[in-house]
């Protein structure tokens, strides 16, 4: 049974903006799914409808087989959501925010306390449990929203830009936590602008733009569609004259940094052999652009070209 099933979902706002146009999407139970799209593509509207914050104009939404129109309580009971923007009472202590959310979902107070403690400890917030929300840092608020979303033990967690504005250390802690809950069986839908985050965490992906799903595939298949990859090489010495390496396109960034394009038919081993033959030693190598980022931009561009 899919965790989320969306059929012909449409949304037109009161101002006439058509945010979703007959969207079909299915997310399997247990998946770690990326929903990507540029700003204004329709991601937040889609999430808003699934989480009952936005009214749909048409179509159908099912969560673990429960229809949003016929069984809204069952749908909502199965979902935990971490919204893009902070949405809590800034004057409440952190633990109260989590306990209240548990109460809204019908979790008995005693049980809620034990779950809140476990989650706040996991997310390094236990020592700040009595601190008012307004006095927490941005990263702490983000983590608190994750604890709040999980306290009723949802089977589907929707994370809308959960790491926006969070430093890399906390982001990595959050990634570890998300992997952990996914490994325990929770389906996760992630929207993010950090494409390396999606590439690192997710197994399947949908790209949405102009209110339509432009692409829906698994990350491995998507990445295999890359024709070329561009790497930046930091050299040990200086290279004034670029050698000609069959199959590899070299360009100077400066005398000790090169950019090289490798097509799918060639390997990095082959590149290093060719460089060694020409007496060029490489100190380090990195992707010029995140692989998923390139594919994402290509898909969005292609979609826009096809959109009348």
């Amino acid at each position, binding site marked *: 049974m899919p965790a989320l099933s969306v059929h012909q979902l449409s949304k037109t*706002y*009161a101002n006439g903006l058509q945010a979703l146009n007959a969207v079909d999407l299915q997310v399997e139970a247990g998946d770690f799914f990326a929903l990507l799209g540029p700003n204004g593509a329709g991601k937040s509207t889609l999430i*808003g409808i699934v*989480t*009952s*914050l*936005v*009214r749909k104009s048409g179509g159908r939404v099912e969560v673990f087989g429960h229809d949003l129109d016929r069984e*809204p*309580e*069952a749908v*909502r*009971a*199965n*979902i935990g*959501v971490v*919204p893009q*923007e*902070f*949405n*809590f*009472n*800034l004057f409440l202590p952190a633990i109260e*925010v989590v*306990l*209240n*959310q548990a*109460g*809204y*979902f*019908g*979790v*008995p*107070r005693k049980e809620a306390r034990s779950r809140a403690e*476990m*989650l706040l400890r*996991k997310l390094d917030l236990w020592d700040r449990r009595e601190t008012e929300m307004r006095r927490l840092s941005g990263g702490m608020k983000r983590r608190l929203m994750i604890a*709040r979303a*999980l306290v*009723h*033990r*949802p*089977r589907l967690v929707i994370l809308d830009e959960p790491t926006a504005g969070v430093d890399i250390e906390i982001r990595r802690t959050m990634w570890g*936590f998300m992997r*952990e*809950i996914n490994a*325990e*069986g*929770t*389906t996760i839908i992630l929207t993010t602008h950090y494409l390396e985050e999606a590439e690192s965490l997710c197994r399947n992906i949908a790209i949405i733009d102009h209110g339509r799903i432009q692409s829906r595939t698994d990350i491995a298949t998507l990445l295999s569609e890359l024709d070329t990859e561009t790497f930046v090489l930091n050299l040990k010495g200086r290279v004034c004259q670029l050698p000609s390496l069959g199959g590899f396109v070299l360009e100077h960034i400066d005398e000790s940094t090169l950019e090289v394009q490798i097509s799918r038919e060639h390997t990095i081993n082959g590149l290093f052999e060719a460089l060694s033959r020409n007496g060029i030693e490489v100190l380090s190598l990195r992707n010029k652009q995140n692989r998923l980022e390139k594919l994402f931009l290509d898909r969005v561009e292609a979609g826009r070209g096809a959109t009348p």
Partner: protein
Amino acid sequence: MNINAADKGPLIDANRWRRYQITFTTLFSKEVTRFSRIWIQTILPSAITTTLYFVIFGRLIGDRIGPMEGLAYIDFIVPGLVLMAVITNAYSNVVSSFYSSKFSRYIEELLVSPAPNWVILAGYVAGGVARGLLVGIVVLIVAAFFTSFSIHNIGVTFLILLLTAILFSLGGFINAIYANSFDDISIVPTFVLAPLTYLGGVFYSIELLPQPWQTLSLANPILYMINAFRYGLLGVSDIPLGFAFLIIAIFIAALGYYSLSLLRRGIGIKQ
């Protein structure tokens, strides 16, 4: 330790009424905690205002006015002042709390939960009723220092207090749903509630009014509440008691239905 229990699934349907009860209790205790934390802003002002009313209208001016409906003037105004405090506090508790949750978007915590609309409404209304009743009791205690009233019918007294608090909590809820700014939550109390309360017979008997004002006053729902409450406290009323209860019940049913309809359609809270 397991972070989630996806295998077990969330709490749904197996114990639906228990879940509703927990949600209601959470909302209610959140509301009570909120107004208790800021008691200087929520409870104390009514006590001070009422004390001033008793000193000025009861003692200083009241002695010159003379008896009203066979009662000392200071005794006559007790029910109106108590009910005025209940109306104001029940209304403002719900309107400010619900609008704040809209403004800061933490209403979303409730909207994403499986709480049905009627439980959400009941939770907020119960919060308003709790504050209204608490303030009403405080004002009654203040009144006891200035007057020598004794409660004529405790059942009617309590029932009117309760129903009035419910009615104006519902009014506050509807106001909050439509409000788009903090200015919008003060318009109704200032331009509708206050005039209706003052013209509802807090300080006078409508028998003193000439026609057509006496008949027009009968269109003011607050008149029925004040008179029914006056009957409960003092045993005198301008209005038949049963009719007063009927009017209040009709208003509660209408506002309750309308509030639920607004929630169902997501007016003011969903895009």
